């Protein structure tokens, strides 16, 4: 478990302001924020490259604020992977164990086993410059995991990859986390990545941690308008695909079913629906929209010029003041939320 307490630090053109959060053992914590929000600097501070001007960092209850990086046992994977260009894959992976001066045989066994599990054994004699982005990323992960770190820090681990590789590595990260259960802090600006991997999300803006919450809460109930704008104000529902007929899937969310378009065949998914794509009506609509779900209004929040109407079915819609007055959209009223199958975005969890 790692805890940051009121960490503040100033760099030339950026500062961290009173950042506090805790990541539990085995948790995958995602720090989500726009590009250049100082996300890498937080990780570098946790790793020990900067001693914060104010505040404390505790690792398993021990104050490590002043301890140098090499004594922290924290793994780090940079966005550009930062493989040692003069060493081959195997030497890269073995580096941390050599620093620990382990017996040769033990190093050999450990390196072999992690390379096998990451599927990079066949690359062992290659130099980093000859590897693809995805391969480099696997090597970088293996190199940081082989020392069995207390914390794994991932700096935008997927953003430099092409979409297809990104997808497969996202699955890989998930699998690694399930198998090894390494406490992970992962920074990204990518919402899909955050949703797919995070147990909890911390949203950072301008060097301040503005919301720490479950993915569901961050996306459904962002605490500020800024966060809402950044995350795109989404409805996120958890569900399970129960059928797929020629690309039209039915997702069971527990209380109701949603029809969406996707080539996913089965499994657990996150369902995204933008609130501005939801139409509210007093009676069930007979229209081309494939989904029409009833719910009781539980909350009405103003968001700039629009209002966000929350319903007890887990959905929220964005409407104008005019619509509220005309339809009488007040708390307690039952309405129908309608949206097209094409307005839904599914992400596998």
């Amino acid at each position, binding site marked *: 478990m790692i805890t940051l307490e009121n960490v503040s630090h100033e760099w030339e053109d950026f500062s961290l302001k009173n950042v506090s959060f805790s990541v539990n053992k085995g948790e995958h914590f995602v720090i989500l924020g726009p590009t250049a929000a100082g996300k890498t600097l937080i990780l570098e501070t946790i*790793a020990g490259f900067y001693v914060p001007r104010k505040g404390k960092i505790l690792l398993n209850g021990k104050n490590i604020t002043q301890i140098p990086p*090499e004594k*922290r046992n924290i793994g780090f994977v940079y966005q550009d992977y930062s493989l040692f260009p003069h060493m081959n894959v195997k030497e890269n992976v073995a580096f*941390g164990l050599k620093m620990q001066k382990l017996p040769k045989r033990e190093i050999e066994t450990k390196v072999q086993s992690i390379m096998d599990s990451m599927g990079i054994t066949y690359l062992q004699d290659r130099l980093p410059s000859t590897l693809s982005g995805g391969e480099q990323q696997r090597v970088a992960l293996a190199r940081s995991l082989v020392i069995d770190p207390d914390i794994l820090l991932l700096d935008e681990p997927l953003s430099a990859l092409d979409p297809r590789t990104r997808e497969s590595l996202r699955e890989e990260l998930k699998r690694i986390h399930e198998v090894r259960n390494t406490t992970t802090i992962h920074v990204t600006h990518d919402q899909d990545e955050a949703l797919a991997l995070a147990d909890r999300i911390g949203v950072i803006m301008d060097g301040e941690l503005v919301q720490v919450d479950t993915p569901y809460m961050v996306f459904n109930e962002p605490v500020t308008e800024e966060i809402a704008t950044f995350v795109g104000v989404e409805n996120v529902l958890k569900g399970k695909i129960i059928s797929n007929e020629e690309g039209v899937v039915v997702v069971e969310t527990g209380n109701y079913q949603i029809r969406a378009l996707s080539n996913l065949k089965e499994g657990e998914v996150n369902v995204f629906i933008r609130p501005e794509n939801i139409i509210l009506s007093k009676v069930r609509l007979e229209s081309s929209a494939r989904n029409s779900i009833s719910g009781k209004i539980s909350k009405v929040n103003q968001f700039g010029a629009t209002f966000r109407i929350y319903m007890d079915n887990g959905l929220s819609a964005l409407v104008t003041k005019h619509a509220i007055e005309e339809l009488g959209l007040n708390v307690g009223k039952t309405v129908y939320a309608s949206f097209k199958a094409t307005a839904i975005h599914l992400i596998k969890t």
Partner: protein
Amino acid sequence: MMVKKALRGAKRHRLSLIFLFVGSLLILFTILTLFNMIFRQLVLEPEGLLEAAADPVVIESIVLTLYCSFLATLIAAILGTPLAYVLARHDFPGKTIVESVIDVPIIIPHSVAGIALYALFMSRSPVGEAFSNIGIIFEDSMWGIVVAMLFVSAPFYVNAAREGFQTINPRLERVARTLGASQWKSFYKITLPLAVRHLFSGAIMAWARGISEFGAVIMIAFYPMIAPVLIFYRFTTHGLQGSQPIAVLLILICIGVFILLRTSAKYWEKKK
């Protein structure tokens, strides 16, 4: 038809062609100067060259030159590598001043450098006296030659080394730290091996610069004669006839050594 096409091509690249022509004059100037001397000696008066090669005074002075410059380069590398690393990695107030100081020996006249070195290291000066207590004398000695060469050649090493260190992403060192390497280990295992090519070529530059030094050296150590001083001495006493063979011999040996070093460095890199 072909001519027309060529002409049209020439028109399209007019700027580059004119620049190429003007630029080639400069190259020609260098080649002509050296080639003229080497050619005349090798082809027209080969016996003079052989005579010089058989002269123990000449050979001794060439060996002395190469050796003193090697020592100067070694000192520059030992003291200059840490300096170059600090300059590449850190920003601090006054950094520009430090960098300018490093470059000063390149811009001041070398006879001036020689006078300054003499004033500091002569036996009557406090510094010269302190060194003479531990048995190192600079006036008219090998150590005088070495300090003069060090003064003029160190900037070449430091600048090359700094540029080398700058090409290495500090993230590599940071990752090494997270993997348990101390600052020393990460420098030794990551930074140094990655910079070694730059350090080596900086050392070759510094060494060459040391060999070519004349002005600063004669002020502090006319004797023992390094090759450039011997060439000057023979030129004033025996004219072109007596000095040119030594000059050609020195140039041929230097070119030979440089080619050897470059190719061995390449071979070594490939092997890795």
